[in-house]
């Protein structure tokens, strides 16, 4: 007959054998998550920058999305991370845009010098011309991208989101639908309208 001490020893032995495996699994998915974030962070940042027109704000929403993903969804299968991340990111972008709208309304009622909140954090050195000679082709590309960004900002939020996720991020319709929390049919409609509107704005020669 086994004594209570034998039972305790067995329990400890089982626990000791399981603990490293659990710790290893946690470490493994943390590493995988960091790899995933490293892979998408630049594209996500650029998308946020296109939507918000501000590098610092874009960086903030990207970091927020990273934190929320790692805190709340790290244990989900890695295949779900991308749509989840972009859903969090888009929510962050919309929240910030709403706050800006409210701030703008309040600022118009307040006395004093009127400032455009979008430009208040702008670094004056950013407007200084680069000393290196610009290659014409690069310049043309930069200009074309700038026009595309302006046209994207003019789109309704859902169309912009569908276009960026499908075209820039390369998501398929199903994944985009999960990221946008809507049906696949809606994704197709938003995307098609976005392409049509962009083509009209940018012209056939773009």
């Amino acid at each position: 007959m086994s004594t209570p001490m034998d039972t305790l020893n067995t329990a400890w032995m089982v626990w000791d054998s399981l603990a490293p495996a659990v710790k290893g699994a946690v470490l493994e998915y943390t590493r995988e998550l960091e790899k995933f974030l490293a892979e998408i962070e630049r594209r996500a940042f650029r998308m946020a920058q296109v939507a918000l027109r501000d590098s610092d704000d874009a960086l903030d929403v990207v970091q927020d999305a990273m934190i929320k993903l790692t805190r709340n969804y790290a244990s989900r299968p890695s295949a779900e991370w991308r749509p989840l991340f972009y859903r969090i990111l888009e929510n962050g972008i919309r929240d910030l845009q709403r706050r800006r709208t409210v701030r703008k309304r309040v600022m118009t009622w307040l006395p004093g010098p009127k400032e455009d909140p979008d430009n208040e954090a702008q670094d004056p050195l950013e407007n200084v011309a680069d000393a290196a000679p610009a290659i014409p082709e690069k310049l043309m590309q930069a200009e074309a991208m700038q026009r595309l960004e302006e046209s994207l900002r003019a789109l309704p939020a859902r169309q912009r989101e569908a276009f960026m996720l499908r075209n820039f991020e390369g998501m398929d319709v199903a994944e985009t639908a999960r990221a946008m929390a809507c049906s696949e049919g809606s994704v197709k409609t938003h995307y098609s309208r976005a392409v049509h509107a962009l083509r009209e704005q940018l012209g056939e020669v773009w």
Partner: protein
Amino acid sequence: MSEQHRDAFETRSRALFQDSVDNLDFAMRSRLTQARHAAIEAAGRRAWYLRWTIWTPAVGVTAAAVLGVALWVGSPLGQHATVADGQSNFEDLELVASSEGSGDTMEMLQDDIDFYDFADKAASPDPAA
């Protein structure tokens, strides 16, 4: 808009976007890397109570305590120590100390009287003998 034009537009816009991503300056790349590390670290800090390294000893001690209590309650010694039906141990004490004539007490008393009677007879010689 023809399908061909549409494809060309999609390809060009994708290429331009990718180009702008690739040309992000070093400072911004570095800030993104810092943001990523901060996010991973912040998530780790918040979830400290979920870490197995912290829970391992705590869960072990709790399990040992629960097991100990279970074994104690299950053992005959533990059962004797428990009070059934809300009765107090003082009631048991009263029964033992009570001088009211219960059958057992009288029987014990009777045994003692017989013994003392026998001892008295054995000690003193029979006057008839």
